């Protein structure tokens, strides 16, 4: 892709981000302001003990250092925001600074996406040849048929990143940038650099532990073991101690720099207790569209049936909180209550086939990406206290696959549409409704159009969205009606007081169905891909 084209994508999306400055901000804005204040005005030894505000520092040390650096600049904007006791302080200069800090740190993402686009050129080599052959006859290739351009827009204009970072307020763009950079390095076969960026990323935000197994298996399999047998199995004798040692040094070094000072001060226990708070509950206040949303709704239904059938007495039922309640532990009535241990076991069990699959074949970058997506999927679907925002962890790496193969594109279109719609409740203020609907429409329109053009086939199904089957099309159209009901119908029917949480519940359950379906389909694609390899 030509650099000017990439530049224009970057500039327009940056302008959109700047325009979003006056939007609504969630409490995460105050969280990050508080962290700026803590890292600026408290000594390092106090960082993980400070609790003036309820929003204590609960990210790994690298992120604290990042906030520390930001606070140096923040001083120039408004020193008052750096006082720990100045709770909920949001002067114009503070807002401007914090918003700009997100926008500027997003340039890590810009660089990483550029690197990824260069890699996709290699990944898509085969497709590209086809593409050139097809388009070669015409005068100039359509912009939408250039995988690199499509990928750049899908990643930089990602709906989830835009609303979570630039409206809701977080630094996911920057972190996603680090992740994509590590992926790009691995795709370029610069494994050590990839490992470095990923361990750095883990020390910025530990949610990326979700995808760590894929990195672990991949690096072990294709960096530490240097050769494969004819059938694609690992050749055990090819273990390179040199590579293993190098990898260990890189990873441990990053962790040592990050956690070392806190271990030296004997604060490791305190830091870890902040990073992994227990007693939070199986699901978040708003159910993420995962397996547990379906489980909860099944529990509700079963309870209702049981009460009707007099199997359960109404007194036994704990005052169950619907979605939208406070963050707290949640006990099921009809179905067994889920403990954290169960979720861990289920998550690992769900990842296992993908990891084994990755191990048993000569790892190609595409296999690695697939496994990465599946790990993110498993953690999202079965994890304990998963946030709906974690869907971004799946959609971003899946975008890379979507531009190179038709099947992945199909999964991507369905998952990105329902996954992004499930983020709508995150922005509940009325003024943000048009913004989020417009952004979502733009992203989805572009995704459907571009992937439709990119993977166009001679066989066209009438009345279907590009690449989707009739059933999936019906589901996607259903999302529109769901959103119409949630934003207009529910209020008009006058159910707001009687069933206040119904729209949220409907959204998460309906989207959960789509996410589960995409997961199963994607698993199937990944596992059958091997058979295809064997046959050939």
């Amino acid at each position, binding site marked *: 892709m030509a650099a000017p084209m990439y530049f224009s994508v970057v*500039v*327009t999306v940056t302008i959109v981000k700047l325009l979003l*400055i*006056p*939007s609504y901000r969630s409490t995460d804005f105050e969280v990050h302001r508080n962290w700026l204040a803590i890292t600026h005005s408290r000594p390092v030894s106090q960082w993980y003990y400070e609790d003036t505000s309820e929003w204590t520092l609960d990210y790994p040390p690298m992120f604290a250092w990042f906030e520390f650096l930001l606070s140096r600049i923040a001083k120039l904007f408004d020193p008052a925001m750096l006082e720990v006791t100045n709770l909920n302080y949001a002067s114009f200069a503070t807002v401007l600074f914090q918003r700009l800090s997100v926008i500027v740190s997003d340039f890590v993402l810009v660089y990483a996406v550029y690197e990824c686009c260069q890699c996709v050129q290699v990944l898509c080599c085969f497709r590209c040849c086809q593409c050139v052959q097809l388009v070669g006859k015409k005068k100039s290739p359509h912009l939408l048929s250039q995988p690199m351009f499509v990928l750049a827009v899908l990643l930089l204009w990602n709906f989830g990143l835009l609303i979570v970072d630039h409206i809701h307020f977080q630094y996911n763009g920057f972190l996603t940038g680090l992740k994509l950079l590590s992926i790009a390095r691995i795709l370029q076969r610069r494994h050590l650099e990839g490992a470095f960026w990923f361990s750095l990323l883990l020390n910025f935000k530990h949610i990326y532990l979700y995808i760590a197994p894929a990195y672990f298996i991949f690096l072990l399999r294709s960096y530490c073991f240097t050769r494969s047998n004819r059938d694609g199995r690992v050749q055990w004798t090819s273990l390179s101690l040199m590579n293993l040692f190098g990898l260990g040094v890189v990873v441990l070094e990053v962790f040592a720099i990050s956690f070392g000072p806190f271990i030296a001060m004997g604060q490791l226990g305190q830091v870890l207790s902040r990073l992994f708070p227990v007693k939070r509950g199986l699901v978040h206040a708003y159910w993420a569209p995962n397996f547990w949303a379906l489980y909860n709704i099944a529990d509700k239904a079963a309870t209702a049936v049981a009460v009707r059938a007099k199997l359960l007495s109404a007194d036994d039922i704990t005052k169950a909180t619907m979605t939208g309640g406070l963050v707290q532990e949640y006990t099921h009535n009809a179905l067994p209550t889920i403990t954290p241990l169960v979720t861990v076991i289920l998550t690992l069990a769900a990842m296992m086939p993908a990891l084994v699959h990755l191990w048993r074949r000569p790892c190609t970058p595409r296999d690695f990406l697939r496994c990465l997506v599946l790990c993110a999927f498993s953690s999202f679907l079965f994890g304990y206290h998963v946030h709906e925002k974690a869907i971004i962890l799946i959609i971003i790496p899946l975008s890379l696959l979507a531009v190179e193969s038709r099947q992945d594109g199909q999964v991507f279109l369905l998952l990105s549409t329902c996954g992004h719609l499930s983020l709508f409740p995150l922005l509940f203020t009325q003024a943000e409704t*048009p*913004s989020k609907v*417009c952004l979502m429409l*733009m992203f989805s329109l572009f995704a459907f159009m571009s992937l*439709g053009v990119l993977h166009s086939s001679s066989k066209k199904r009438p009345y279907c969205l590009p690449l989707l089957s009739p059933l999936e099309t019906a589901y996607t159209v259903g999302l529109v009606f769901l959103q119409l009901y949630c934003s207009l119908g529910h209020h008009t029917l006058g159910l707001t007081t009687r069933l206040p949480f119904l729209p949220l519940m409907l959204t998460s359950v309906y989207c959960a169905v789509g996410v589960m379906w995409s997961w199963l389909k994607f698993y199937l694609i990944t596992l059958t891909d091997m058979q295809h390899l064997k046959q050939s």
Partner: protein
Amino acid sequence: MDTRFGTLCTAVVFAVFVRWVVSLNSYSGMGKPPMYGDYEAQRHWMEITTNLPIKQWYFNGTDNDLLYWGLDYPPLTAYHMWLCGKVAEWIDPDWTSLFASRGYESYEHKLFMRYSVLIGDVVIYIPAVLLYCFLQKKFTHTQKVLLSCVLLLFPGLIIIDYGHFQYNSISLGLTLWAVIALSHRHEVLGSAAFMLALCYKQMSLYHAMPFFCYLLGKCWQQRWKKGFFSLCCIGVSVLATFAFVWMPFLSDKDLFLQVVHRIFPVARGVFEDKVSNFWCSLSVVVKFRNFMSHEGLLKLCLATTLLGLVPSSLDLLFRPSGNKFKLALVNSSLVFFLFSFQVHEKSILLPALPVCLLLPWRPFTSTWFLTIATFSMLPLLVKDGLVIATLITSILFIIAVELGLQGVSSDPTIGCPVCIWSSKNLPWLPHRVFFYAVKSGFYASLMGALFLGLLSVVVPPPSSLPDLWPVLISVYSCSHFIGFTLYYHIVQLMTTDSKETAAQKTKKTQ
């Protein structure tokens, strides 16, 4: 799904998105009692129109204090406000209750007001722009989509309507419908649409002269009987539209005169605040008020405006053509803006509309004009707290032009009268010289605007000259506008629509 339709949808959604995001900013007079600003004016009109009988809307009375944002727009605005007021009343009666609702501000009310602007825009202005772009036969589909996206991103209109708060997109949209209708030979519909625009906002008079001359000129060209007949049709359509809109006010002479008096406030000053027009800039040097009466000033304004209108109007009258018509719209509204009486800084949007229409043919000068037009409203926007939004949307617009009009034309010297003249008369002068001269002039002018804008925001003016920055900005913009007026006049006079004139000649000989 059709890709062609998809790209169009994406462009429109993007335009709506930008509009909405700008509307999240503050509006004029937000939290500034006792008078607030234009936002309160519009809300107050909703209050007046829903609570009072139609005959009292324009009269001072116990229930209607004209000194507090009295209704001073033509009836169509009043009806629109009545409609909005009824909806507002249905949502929350507090929003329109007489007297009690003065200065009402709330999160929900702001949303309601912003939505009302967006609906007007989506119903009238945006379809008109799309239609205009898609009727241009020369362009490919992609070019049409890009062109409409660029036109929809003109920052001045977005900032004034969605930031400052007004309903300009309705009157400008109606004018645009009229232009489209005229360019496709629907003179009756076109004149009716323009009459509606005029009945929505009297400022549309800036465009009246070209409409009149074009229609008259077109009828003149036809054979005697046919021409007279079409002239009658146009006249009937204009009068019928006028009568229809003004019906409730035509029963009584006093009532009618009162409305007219409210709409044309001759008693007010020659310009409001600091405007980048001729009189305001001249007043820096010459203090008219010391040696001229109010009446005299009024007459002077009238005389200069009429004199300024003569060249473009006569040209259009005798050689009417589609291109000349658009250029005459620019010229007439610019002359009005520069020389007429009681000019607001926002009135620059009226010349901006036809300049937008010229964008695909003269992208360079149009972009220049539109950017300076937005800049000229800066003092107002600073007051409203819209500086950042203005800056960002302006950058977005310039980038959109760069990207969107790439395929159309990128040479700034295209259509430049000086270049055409020199290529004929001074063949030894290389074309490149002009290219670089014009380009560097453009960048220097924009940098100057940016610099002046930054100064006005960052540096407090000296206490002896509190109005230093607004005056400098208006003089700076005014000098540009005078230059643009000359440029567009020359372009209009030099334009010879070869096809049309040829067609006319063959007609006449027949």
